[in-house]
């Protein structure tokens, strides 16, 4: 499948585990509204992710599911004023998906109020741009030669609302489509070019956010420089740390207490899923670990109750300790080493 079409926007936190910045961080040409790409409604899910070869990476990064995103995504797309007639849905079925939106950030309310506000039904995402959109997208999806000409025509016929937008997305269309700006070439090669370039630029922006100090830099080369330096410094750090580890290793007794106390809290936010750990190593519940587990269970408030229910009976048979006391007596912020603890007993 090829990309000769519009460019889909990936949610902002795309590259890294930044769900909270999902929407703000990504910019396209001038199309600030179009921050999301939604999976097609055909339920086929992601047939092929154009940008991320492993779908698991997408799952990991975006943790969204196609079915659950439809409600919010459709609303969003209503904002984006994309038509969703049956013709387009057919076409959508043939193409592959670009990106997903991050469900955990809730809806894209930041952007939704910009254009149309009410998109009640799933089927009609409309307004006038819709009609022109329909014809336009129909043009886009057909072969590129024809597409080019029609685009030019439609482009001029369209209102100025589309003039500044370099890319648009359609939830039904898994393809990335690039709309030609005024005065730009519209043959298939340059379209594909442009799509590709925009994708690359989007990635670069994400990387810029990731690497500290890259925001201020102008120019791809310098940003790449920074990235290279950052990676190199990280690799050197890892090397040095592993050297230190090697020198220290013989004396390590892997004492759980000390490991836990030194582990800094930022690593684990206390969302520790004790049950998951239990599942992984169900036969390894030990007394010392239990106390840590209990402490952990107290930390994440929202998830507390299931774990308590879970763990108490299991560990109850092995220790009669008062759970309350344990929680405060041990150091906090070291949930990260639960697997460590468990594994230590191997």
């Amino acid at each position: 499948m090829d990309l000769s079409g519009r460019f889909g926007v990936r949610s902002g936190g795309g590259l890294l585990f930044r769900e909270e910045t999902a929407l703000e961080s990504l910019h396209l040409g001038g199309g600030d509204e179009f921050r999301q790409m939604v999976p097609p409604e055909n339920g086929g899910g992601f047939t092929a992710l154009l940008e991320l070869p492993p779908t698991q990476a997408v799952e990991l990064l975006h943790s969204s599911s196609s079915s659950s995103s439809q409600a919010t995504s459709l609303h969003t797309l209503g904002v984006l004023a994309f038509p969703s007639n049956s013709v387009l849905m057919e076409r959508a079925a043939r193409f592959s998906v670009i990106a997903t939106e991050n469900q955990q950030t809730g809806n894209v309310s930041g952007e939704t109020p910009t254009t149309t506000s009410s998109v009640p039904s799933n089927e009609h995402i409309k307004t006038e741009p819709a009609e022109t959109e329909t014809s336009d997208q129909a043009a886009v999806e057909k072969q590129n030669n024809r597409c080019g000409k029609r685009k030019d025509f439609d482009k001029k016929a369209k209102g100025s609302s589309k003039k500044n937008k370099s890319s648009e997305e359609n939830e039904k269309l898994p393809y990335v489509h690039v709309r030609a700006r005024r005065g730009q070439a519209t043959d298939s090669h340059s379209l594909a070019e442009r799509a590709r370039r925009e994708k690359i630029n989007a990635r670069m922006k994400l990387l810029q956010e990731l690497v500290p100090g890259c925001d201020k830099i102008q120019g791809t080369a310098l940003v790449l420089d920074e990235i290279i330096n950052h990676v190199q410094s990280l690799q050197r750090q890892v090397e040095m740390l592993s050297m230190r580890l090697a020198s220290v290793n013989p004396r390590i007794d892997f004492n759980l207490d000390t490991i836990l106390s030194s582990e800094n809290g930022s690593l684990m936010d206390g969302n520790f899923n004790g049950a998951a750990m239990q599942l992984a190593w169900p036969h390894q519940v030990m007394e010392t670990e239990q106390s840590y587990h209990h402490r952990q269970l107290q930390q994440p408030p929202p998830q507390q109750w299931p774990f308590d229910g879970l763990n108490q009976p299991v560990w109850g048979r092995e220790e009669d300790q008062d759970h309350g006391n344990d929680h405060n007596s041990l150091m906090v912020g070291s949930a990260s080493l639960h697997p460590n603890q468990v594994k230590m007993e191997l």
Partner: protein
Amino acid sequence: MERQMINKKKRVFSFEPTKLPPSEVFTRKYISHLVPALKKLNMGKSSPQINQLTVKREVDKALALSAQEFAWSRFLLQKLSSSNNPTTTTSSSSIQTQILERSNDEDGEIEEKLKELQKLLPGGEEMNVEEILTEIGNYIKCLELQTSALKSIVQDAT
């Protein structure tokens, strides 16, 4: 019966690993891979000298095992399993062909930088530009997490 309930609950929770932020998942996995390996190394060697190279290998292996969703981790594992053989870089011309379309004078620089980036990333030689940029992003993140995990382990030990 309580046991069954517990088991049921266990089963339920096992299907929700995504509740954890990925960074935590990674850190946990990483530590759970690394520490036992170190312990084993510790036990195995009677001599106090633990080979730095071996430790580095374990460190890298833990990194790769904890991040198996990413392409570079597969390449890293490959490299590790072919252990001491230095990997010959396949043609770095892979970048050249990719970037050729954009090349003008300025982009020539960019091309070189991308080539360097390729070398830094495990498996970078076999990726095209987009993939490199994507993978570099999560590689950086995993490196950062790895660094902090290592720091805490080392701090704890000293």
